[in-house]
């Protein structure tokens, strides 16, 4: 069953002017539940733009994005926020966590916004942190953790809301190779064991090698999909 469908997506910055940029130039894409997909391509090829539009953070110039039968390109700003909260997990390259909250509180926070009761939140947050191998760091704040640990908290946070899929824009860009491998192990594991759908962008060949599907973008177009 496909959970993400994009139809004829265009994103054009500064349309009509001399500095017009076609960040997305007609993207048709279909992603099924349980995929572990990498989006690759040279810098400026439109990876971030695509992920942002799929994630409802940005609107396309034309075309549509359908997630589980909801055409999110038709939602207004408030509906989008709510949709993101309940359907999509995000892992960014950096600045993922709330600096003044501990790892546990960061993971709990998203469930709190969903209105989960406290005992349930705490239990699940602890489980998730254990799943990403951070059961001993639960009470640390982000600035007391390594970059790799922070990204793992971000993955736990992304999963806490029980999303349909997780979007990760270059999640390993700031990590050393050991942390990168660790993070990918965790993501691959969650994908295999829990069936969590992951879509991530990357430049890193080692990351690309772990993906089960690789979509290559160039100049805002899909040039390969294998």
């Amino acid at each position, binding site marked *: 069953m496909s959970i993400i469908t994009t139809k004829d997506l265009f994103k054009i910055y500064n349309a009509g002017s001399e500095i017009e940029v076609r960040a997305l130039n007609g993207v048709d894409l279909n992603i099924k539940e349980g995929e572990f997909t990498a989006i690759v391509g040279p810098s400026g090829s439109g990876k*971030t733009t695509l992920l*942002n539009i799929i*994630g409802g*953070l*940005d609107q396309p110039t034309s075309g549509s994005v359908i997630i589980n039968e909801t055409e999110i390109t038709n939602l207004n700003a*408030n509906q989008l*926020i*709510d949709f*993101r*909260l*309940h359907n999509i997990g*995000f892992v*960014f*390259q*950096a*600045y*993922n966590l*709330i*600096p*003044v*909250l501990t790892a546990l*509180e960061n993971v709990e*926070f*998203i469930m*709190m*916004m*969903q209105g989960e009761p406290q005992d349930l939140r705490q239990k699940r947050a602890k489980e998730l942190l254990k799943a990403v191998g951070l059961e001993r760091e639960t009470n640390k704040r982000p600035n007391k953790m390594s970059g790799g640990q922070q990204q793992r908290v971000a993955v736990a*946070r*992304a999963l806490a*809301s029980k999303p349909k899929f997780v979007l990760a824009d270059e999640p390993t860009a700031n990590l050393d190779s050991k942390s990168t491998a660790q993070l990918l192990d965790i993501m691959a594991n969650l994908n295999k064991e829990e069936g969590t759908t992951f879509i991530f962008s990357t430049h890193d060949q080692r990351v690309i090698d772990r993906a089960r599907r690789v979509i290559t973008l160039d100049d805002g177009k899909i040039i390969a999909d294998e």
Partner: protein
Amino acid sequence: MIQIIKIAWRNIWRNKLRSFVVIFSIVLGIWAGLFIMALTLGLNEQRMNGAINTYLSHIQIHNPDYINDPNIKSYISQPEQTLAALRQNKNIKAFSERTIVMGMVSSSKGAYGVRLMGINPEQEKQVSDIHTLLTSGTYFTKFKRNPAVIGQKLADKLGAKVRSKIVISFQDLNNDIISAAFRVEGIYKSSSSRYDEYNIFIKRDDLNRLGHLNGKIHEIAAICPSINQVDEVVKSLQVAIPDSKVQGWDEVAPELGYAQEMMSSVIYIFMGIILFALAFGIVNTMLMAILERRRELGMLMSVGMNKIKLFSMIVFETIFLSSIAVPVGMLLSYLFIQYFAHKGIDLSVAAKGLESLGISAIIYPYMPGHYYFSITLMTVLVAFLSSLVPAKKALNLNPAEAVRSI
């Protein structure tokens, strides 16, 4: 929402210097506002009390004609009845009858127009504090023949000292010119040099004898046990002696009452200016705090923090800062004002100008409790309003832009 409040609280301690600057400026604003207010109120209160104690007393009674034209012929028409009414009134603590005549005083140095206040020294002491304001000499205790107590300013102009001879002249009831030699027994200095320049005190007996004014009264000054009783006593006396005009101090010198009212509006305007500057500071600082955290706020919006929560978070941050600052500012101002209310602030450097306005050189700040309350309220309100601008700004962040801008 509790979580949001917790985050907001922790957020304000992330940049301690900035939070301190905001807190400090609120404290300073409150302190400056309250202190200037207390100073102004104290000044006014002192001016009012000074005027009442020295010149006005609580209640004055005249012939109705005397008020527009203080003429020697406008004496109180039924003195016996009037005095009886005063004696019977339980709320009259003391009163003093005065014979008042406009005249001239002269020495070898010159002649000046003055108001001759014929008083009974013992009575007068109870309604006015002039006898405590002598800079030299005595108050009608030493000289047997025609003693006079004159103001410092007049003494300077006349070149008179204690024991100096001065000549007083005036027109009596028959328009005959009366002249008599007096001797300066005391020289007083009140807080108003304009008053000192114009008012000479002599014994009522002397004035009555010279001017053939026996039994005539131009003015009765009375005081009540408390200033709060004045209105009520004025009313009841006026009923008892309908032929005379009974006035409370605030009717005799309405400008003092107006000054009080005007002062409080000036104070609020002043406070408004301070608070405006404060709001400006808060808005700027909080805007900076938001721009600095764009990516973090963008992340929060991306993962699903809704606008109400984001907005509340920023508003709470500002409110927390002010709720730390306001009590500190209040306490500081309170201690400061109390200290100086006790000790006084010496303004004698600038006092020359003040004295001619009836203001003494040492100011005792004074602040009724309700002003603390209204200023607190105003400050909190302003802090709240100024938090809305940055909070609104945060809402306008585009999550995609905010997370992208690395």
